[in-house]
Each structure stands twice: as structure tokens, then as C-alpha cells.
């Protein structure tokens, strides 16, 4: 056989083999398809009734388990925000024979409840038939047990137990703790609880800023349900994970005491530990019932809160910005000392300070001291003690606005105090660049004078004031302002803020004299005994006083409408021999710092001194 013949023979052989093997594989494929068809016939014809029953009557379904929100404790381990059981009722349309009838029956069982049937029916019609829709929320235990006893009368309606937030400590804590409410539209995509129909998230305060830690993780369970969707048995369960518990640095009793000390006046208080930066109290007044938002709040109630001129919904301690007034003077004095002004330098105060202003007819702009007749000769100590405006006009003019701004920023003005309070405002420290950038006009000399007494563009918050004073009085140690207790005390070396101890001593002496020597602005509010407070009053104007009004004689604050009166401010520290706390008090339109704010601060310091030992935190166990 020739080579080519052999090749042809082989090729022929191969083709036959391929055809044979393809035939076998094709038969195998047909056989396997027959198996599939038989299997389908078995499932869909022979066993169809069995599976129909399984499908209709015995479904395995999946329910989400709501996690419990973490508990918020105060410094002493007292629970401030806890969870209570909430009794709600849902309806699943496909599990009712007639949902309108079911709702009517529900109304008969619970005659004293209100259901907006129109709204509910339209929601039921718009929602997929197997999704549970909330009919009633927050039933009383009596109503809930009544419904459970009559549950056979309402098909497709299910009582459920969930959780609701309950705040134990009343209006004094409302702002700092905040509240929770159903998720916003935006959160529906991002929140890890969004699949849960009753999901809520923190909207303000700690509830918001620590929402991620507090919320926990969803669990789920698989249950077998019958034709009516009623749970027959639970098959398995993956428990939800409780949210993290959080302990605050806020001392609940002190917080309450501060709130009461404001005596329903509109204002705020901040109490700082000057060694650690922890806030022991952060109070805003007036306030509202913190449990108001656990239920659906009525429009009427809501409007009464938003229209209230005392703005009870706003956390004034961090969100309201005020001109610091004379409370800025210790920082201005420091700026003067650092820029070559001697403490012995004397300024003569005749009640006013004039600068050239060609835009005015007289060619002169007059800046007045709060004391019309003037203080006479004053040095720095005297100026701090009596809060002489003319002295501060003079030295501010000499050192210029940028030096003042630098010192104020160094101690924390113009910056957020906390890291994660979205409602916090950061205030304004004016400077030449700031004005050019945000207003667009150049700085004027007169504005330096206003800034030197904490007026004009200057804005700050209560939290900022006590924090800044704390960092000054502790000798320039940078502290970490917080209201959440840091369990791991950081052993890092503390950062220092540039501060000359001699300068600090001069400022402290001025503040101590202002409170504890006769003639000082807060002398009337001094604390007798071994432990004393020291501090600076501030009265900040909220209106421009025209020269005409000045000539006719200044109106007394109590003759003015409330919202035209001056704000009263006070910042102080104590005890003077070993400072521990810094306190700031702002009484909105309180008239004056010495009259409205210093007495409140005095009460708070007295409380702090009396209860000193109680401010040692008790740690909670995070279960």
C-alpha cells in the first residue's frame, strides 16, 4: 500500500469514527434531554398538587429583626436614652380576604383609635401585595393585648413588637442627646437599616453624630407561614446586633442644674474640664420634651416650637453665634502683652474714644465706653477688672486686628469645637484677610476698635468660649473637646499652645480682681469661702445705638422690647487657686453680663465646688 493510500484509508477511518462518536454523543444528549423533560413532567404534572400546597400554604419567608439601639449613658453611668417596647400593627394585603373589611374589624376591636383610612387604602393599593404596611404605631399595652385577644377576627393584620427610643432625663438634655426619626429619602440608599420599614436614624445631637455606632446591625429570621401568612414556626434566626452603648462626659445632674439655673430664660451654658477638654454640661434653654419625636408630632405642636421666639429647637450652646462682647478682652489683653504693650501702660478713659472718619459730617467717629462718665486712668489689671472699653479701643488700635485675630484663633475661636456635630457653628474671628475674602471691602480702623471689645463682626458660641478659656487658664495645654467619654485615655504628650506664663498670670489676676475685688464687674456674683471663681462679664449689643438716641439719653434695657436688649455673657473659671473648670453662660437679651449671666455662673461654680468629688466618672459595662 502506498503512502498516499494509507493516508486516505486513515482519513476515511477517522471520518467514520467521528460520525459514529457524534451519533453516540447525540443520542446521549437526546437521552439527557429526555431525563430533563421527565423530571419536569414529574415536578409539574405528577407532583404538582403537592407543590401547589407547599406554594400556597406553607411558605418559608424571611423577616428582618430590628436591632436595639445603643444606650446613651451620662458620666455617672445613668442611662439617658434607652429603648422601650413599641407595639405596632401591620397589614399584608395578600393575606387578607378583603383588606377594607379587615381594617373595619380592627376599628371595632379598638374603637378609641384613629385611622386615616383614605391615606392607608391608597398606600395599600400602591404597595406590592406581600409587603407589610404599618397601620398603627405605638399602641398602649392594653390596646395591644386587646388586639391580640381578638386576632382571629382580623385576617392579614399582625401585631408586632418593636423598639422605640425613650429619653429619661427631660428637656435639659434634649439638645445634646437629640432624637431619632424615620429615615430621610437620602438615607434610604445608604443607611444599613434601610430595609427595615420601621428604621430610624438620629437627627440631632449625639443621636445623629454617633448614629453609626448606636444603630447596630439587622438580624433576620426565616419562618414558615401558612396560607394566611400567619407564622407557624420559626425555622432559624440570626440575631440582630445591638448598637454600641455610648457614655457621655455630660453629668446629668449638673446638666439639669445648669438648665434650671437659667430659669427658663433664653440662653445657654457650657461647662468644661480644663484639664481634659471634656464638657460636663452643654445646656440650651428653653427646651422641649425629648420624647416628643418618638411619636408622630402634630403640625400644631411643631409650629408652636418653630414659631417660638425663644427658639427652643436650637441647641444654642453650639449653634447660636453671639458677639463675645467684653468676654473677648482677656484674649485681646494677651495679644497686647505679646505685642509689646506693658501691663503698666496707662490709658485715660473719659468715656469715649474718637477716630477720624471723613465720611461723617463731623469728620470724627466716636466710640463710647460702657461707662458714660469714664473710668479715669486705667492700666491693664484695672481695665480687665472694670471692663473699660476705652482702654481696649486704645490697645487694639495700637496692635491691630491681625494680632488679635491670631491670638483668638490660637485658643480655638473661629473653629468648630467638636468634630462631628453637624449643627455646630464655628463663629467668626474677623481679620483683614477675612473681611476682604468674605465681604470684599478693605478693613477699617473703626472695625478694629469694635473687634477689640468683641463687637462688630466677632461671633462665637458658648462651647467655644468655655473651651478657649479652658485652654488659656490651663496654661496653654491643647485639650480635646468632647462630650463622649474616651475610654482609652490617650497617653500622648499634650500639645502646647504658645503662652507666656507671666502673661497668663497678669490675665488671671485681672479676672480674679474682676470677680473678687470691690468694683469688679462680677463682684456681686462672687463666691465666698476657700474656693472662688474668677471671670469676665460681657454685654453684647444687638442693635446700633444712634447718636440721636445717645443725646436723648440711653434707654435702659428693661425699657426696650426683649429682642432689642443686650445679650448677657460671662466666662469664668474656678477654683482660682487650682483651676478645674471653665464655664460660659450666655443669657440672650438678658440686659447685661453682670446682671444676667454672672449670677448663673456663680450658682454653677458653687454647685461644682460642692459636688467636686461626684464628677469622677463611673464606667458602664457595654453589654
Amino acid at each position: 500500500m502506498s503512502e498516499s493510500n494509507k493516508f486516505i484509508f486513515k482519513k476515511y477511518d477517522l471520518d467514520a469514527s467521528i460520525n459514529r462518536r457524534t451519533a453516540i454523543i447525540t443520542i446521549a444528549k437526546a437521552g439527557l434531554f429526555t431525563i430533563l423533560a421527565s423530571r419536569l413532567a414529574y415536578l409539574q404534572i405528577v407532583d404538582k398538587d403537592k407543590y401547589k400546597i407547599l406554594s400556597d400554604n406553607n411558605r418559608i419567608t424571611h423577616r428582618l429583626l430590628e436591632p436595639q439601639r445603643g444606650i446613651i449613658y451620662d458620666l455617672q453611668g445613668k442611662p439617658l436614652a434607652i429603648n422601650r417596647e413599641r407595639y405596632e400593627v401591620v397589614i399584608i394585603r395578600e393575606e387578607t380576604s378583603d383588606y377594607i373589611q379587615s381594617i373595619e374589624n380592627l376599628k371595632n376591636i379598638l374603637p378609641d383609635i384613629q385611622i386615616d383610612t383614605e391615606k392607608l387604602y391608597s398606600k395599600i393599593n400602591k404597595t406590592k401585595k406581600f409587603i407589610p404596611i404599618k397601620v398603627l404605631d405605638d399602641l398602649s399595652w392594653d390596646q395591644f393585648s386587646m388586639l391580640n385577644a381578638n386576632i382571629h377576627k382580623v385576617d392579614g393584620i399582625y401585631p408586632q413588637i418593636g423598639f422605640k427610643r425613650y429619653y429619661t432625663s427631660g428637656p435639659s438634655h434634649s439638645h445634646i442627646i437629640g432624637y431619632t426619626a424615620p429615615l430621610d429619602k437620602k438615607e434610604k440608599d445608604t443607611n444599613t437599616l434601610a430595609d427595615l420599614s420601621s428604621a430610624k436614624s438620629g437627627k440631632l445631637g449625639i443621636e445623629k453624630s454617633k448614629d453609626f455606632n448606636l444603630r447596630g446591625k439587622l438580624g433576620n429570621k426565616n419562618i414558615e407561614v401558612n396560607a394566611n401568612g400567619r407564622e407557624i414556626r420559626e425555622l432559624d434566626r440570626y440575631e440582630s446586633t445591638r448598637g454600641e452603648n455610648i457614655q457621655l462626659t455630660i453629668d446629668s445632674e449638673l446638666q439639669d442644674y445648669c438648665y434650671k439655673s437659667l430659669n427658663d430664660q433664653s440662653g445657654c451654658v457650657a461647662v468644661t474640664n480644663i484639664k481634659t477638654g471634656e464638657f460636663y454640661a452643654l445646656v440650651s434653654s428653653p427646651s422641649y420634651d425629648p420624647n416628643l419625636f418618638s411619636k408622630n408630632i402634630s403640625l400644631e405642636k411643631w409650629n408652636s416650637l418653630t414659631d417660638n421666639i425663644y427658639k427652643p429647637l436650637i441647641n444654642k450652646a453650639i449653634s447660636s453665634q453671639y458677639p463675645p462682647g467684653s468676654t473677648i478682652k482677656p484674649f485681646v489683653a494677651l495679644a497686647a502683652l505679646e505685642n509689646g504693650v506693658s501691663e503698666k501702660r496707662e490709658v485715660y478713659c473719659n468715656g469715649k474714644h474718637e477716630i477720624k472718619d471723613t465720611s461723617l459730617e463731623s469728620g470724627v467717629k466716636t466710640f463710647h465706653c460702657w461707662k458714660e462718665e469714664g473710668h479715669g486712668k486705667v492700666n491693664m489689671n484695672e481695665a480687665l477688672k472694670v471692663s473699660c472699653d476705652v482702654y481696649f479701643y486704645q490697645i487694639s488700635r495700637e496692635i491691630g486686628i491681625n494680632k488679635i485675630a491670631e491670638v483668638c484663633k490660637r485658643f480655638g475661636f473661629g473653629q468648630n469645637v467638636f468634630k462631628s456635630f453637624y449643627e455646630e457653628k464655628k463663629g467668626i474671628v474677623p481679620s483683614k484677610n477675612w473681611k476682604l475674602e468674605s465681604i470684599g471691602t478693605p478693613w477699617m480702623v473703626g472695625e478694629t476698635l469694635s473687634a477689640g471689645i468683641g463687637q462688630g463682626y466677632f461671633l462665637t458660641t458658648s462651647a467655644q468660649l468655655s473651651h478657649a478659656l479652658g485652654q488659656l487658664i490651663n496654661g496653654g495645654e491643647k485639650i480635646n473637646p468632647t462630650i463622649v467619654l474616651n475610654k482609652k485615655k490617650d497617653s500622648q504628650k499634650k500639645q502646647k499652645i504658645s503662652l507666656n506664663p507671666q502673661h497668663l498670670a497678669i490675665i488671671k489676676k485681672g479676672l480674679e480682681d474682676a470677680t473678687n475685688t470691690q468694683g469688679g464687674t462680677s463682684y456681686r456674683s462672687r463666691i465666698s469661702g476657700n474656693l472662688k471663681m474668677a471671670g469676665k462679664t460681657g454685654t453684647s449689643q444687638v442693635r446700633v445705638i444712634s447718636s440721636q438716641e445717645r443725646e436723648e439719653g440711653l434707654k435702659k434695657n428693661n425699657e426696650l422690647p426683649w429682642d432689642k436688649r443686650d445679650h448677657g455673657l460671662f466666662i469664668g473659671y474656678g477654683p482660682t487657686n487650682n483651676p478645674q473648670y471653665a464655664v460660659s453662660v450666655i443669657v440672650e437679651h438678658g440686659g447685661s453680663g453682670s446682671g444676667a449671666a454672672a449670677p448663673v455662673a456663680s450658682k454653677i461654680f458653687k454647685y461644682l465646688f460642692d459636688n467636686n468629688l461626684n464628677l469622677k466618672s463611673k464606667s458602664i459595662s457595654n453589654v
Partner: protein
Amino acid sequence: MFSHSNIEATISDKLKSINYFLLFLICTIFFIGILALYSISDGNFSEWPIRHVQRFILGLIIFFIVALLDLKIIFRFAYPIFIVSIVALMLLPLVGDEINGAKRWISFAGFSLQPSEFVKYTLILALAKYFHSMEDYHDNFFSKLIIPTFIVIIPVTFVVIQPDLGTALVIFLGGVSVIWISGLNYKYFISGILVFILSLPILWQYLKGYQKERVFTFFNPERDPLGNGYHITQSKIALGSGGIFGKGYMEGTQSHLNFLPEMQTDFIFTMFGEEFGFIGSIVLILLYMALISISIRMALTSKSLFSKFLSLGVCSVFFIYVFVNIGMVTGILPVVGVPLPFISYGGSSMLAVMFGFGLLTNCYVNYNTTLTKSSFI
């Protein structure tokens, strides 16, 4: 020596000789896929169905490009294409996107592709070229068994470690089908099956926990009705409760109640069977059978060995897809992630299957072309 008649064949000649009945069947099955995806989306066209259409159009473009290429080019580049696909598989652990704990996807110019889907076909290409160019057809052991097995084992290994047992199985069986057609002696197949059975206890050690669970569950789905048996149990309930005529289009309660996750991919047949019943399921299976038998008939017309092996391999891979998927959702095979061609939502498998039918059609169009033996790349 060689026929040159095909060299002058123009594009339009080639277009004329495409089997349009094959394309019609493909489009019919694809249309059923659109119906099913539309139902799963609860009547929403904008998410899954529209993307499915886009992918199908892209698939058609690939189909025509591959079908109209010169067969000689495909023959010449069979090995390089195979090697490129293997390299893509090897790169996965380094550059792959991890989804559900497995690195199967590779992102490329805004697309996310699964190289393992394409390897099913590139392996067939490589084997077809190998057997075409083989010198000694009587050497059963080395030429027909050892070398081809080695070619098959390389991609299978890389897919197993992804880990993606289902796709590895399809690739392996696809490769074995070509070896079978090449005429390897029966005794090797029989001993191969014996060796496999005997080595099961050893292979068992290498399976991951969830893979072992799936095997357990396969033999006894009720053992774990909510974990691994959940899919099988729910799928059977859905199919069975569909009965002979089905619950009606878009009326499938089990499917629409979200009892089965990922309904749009591997379990789409379940929903179809629930809504269209036994009759619908059988019609769909008959469509697949028709498609496969036409393909086999087309494959056998080819003159060159390369074309035959390639086309028959493509038929086998397609059959394995369909059989494993339907077998899995009806509970006669373990749950391994294999999509239902033209119906399951998934870009890579759609493009790969169209690539495969493009190859098949190319062989059919060029049935008369003869190719030289070439063992070079």
C-alpha cells in the same frame, strides 16, 4: 492540491450561506429571555431587559464578525487565542474584581468580563487545532490522551481555584467531548470514570466548606431547607406549583415573592417554568434541542477535521450549559453557578455563547475549506 474555490468567496457570498434558521432559533430563545427578565423586573423594562437587549446586539455583532472571518485566520490563531484566555484567567487573582468571595471578573474599558466564560470556547479551538494537526492517529495513549488532557487541565485548574466549580465542570466536559470525538479508545473513558470515582475521597479534602455543603444538600435537600437546600427546595416548589399550564405571565407568586435570590441569573428557568408551566418548559427545551440538532448537522458538513472538532465542541459546550442549568434548577444536579444561554442575565456568557455560534457558523460557511496540518503557533 488544495481547492481555491473559497478564496474568492466574498462577504456577500458568505452572508448568503449563513444558516438563518439557526439565527432565528437563537433570536426566539433570546426573546423568551426578554419576556422572563421583564417579568422578574415586575414589568420594568429599564433595568435588566434593556441591558439584556444591548448585550444581545453586541453578541450579534461578535457573531457576524467571527462568522465572516477567514477560517484560516481562526485556524492560525487558535493557539494564541487560547493562550491569551489562559493568561487572562491567570491574571484574575491579581487584577480580578472580587464579587461574593470569588474573583471571576476582569474589568476592561468599562466592561466587566468573565474570562472563564470564554475559555470554554478557546479550549475547544485549541483542541480542534491539536487534533487536526496530530500526526499519528493510532497513538491512543500519548497523542490522544496525555497531551489533550494536559491542555484541558490547565484552564480547569485555574477556574477551580477561583473558585467556580460549575464553570470548571462545563469547561472540563466540553474538552472531554472533543477528546471523545477524536476517537480515543473507549477503555480510557471507562478507566477515567473509575479513577474519578476512586479518587473522590481525596478530591473531597480539597473542596471548600460551602462546596461540600452543596454536595450534601444535593443528595438531601431537606437536610438544610433554609441554607443550602433553600434554593433547590424553593425552585422545586416554584416549578411544581406552576403545574401543566403555569400560573400565567407575571403571576408567579414564588418568583415574585423573592423566595429565590438572584432569580435573574441562574434560576431564571424556575420562574419561566412557574409562569408557563410544563408546556412552556417543554417548548423551551424543544427549542434548545432544535438548536443543538441543527448545529450538529451543520458541524458534520465540514470537510476539515479542525472545523468538525470545533463545531462539534461548540455544540457540546452549549448542550452542557443548558443541561447543567436545567438539571440544577429541577434538582437533579447540584447547585453550581451555570447560566441558561440567551435567557440568564449576564454579559460574559451571552457574548461567549455568541462567539461560539460565530465559530460554528464560520465552519459551516467555509465547509469546503481544507486546512494543512500545522503544529506551529
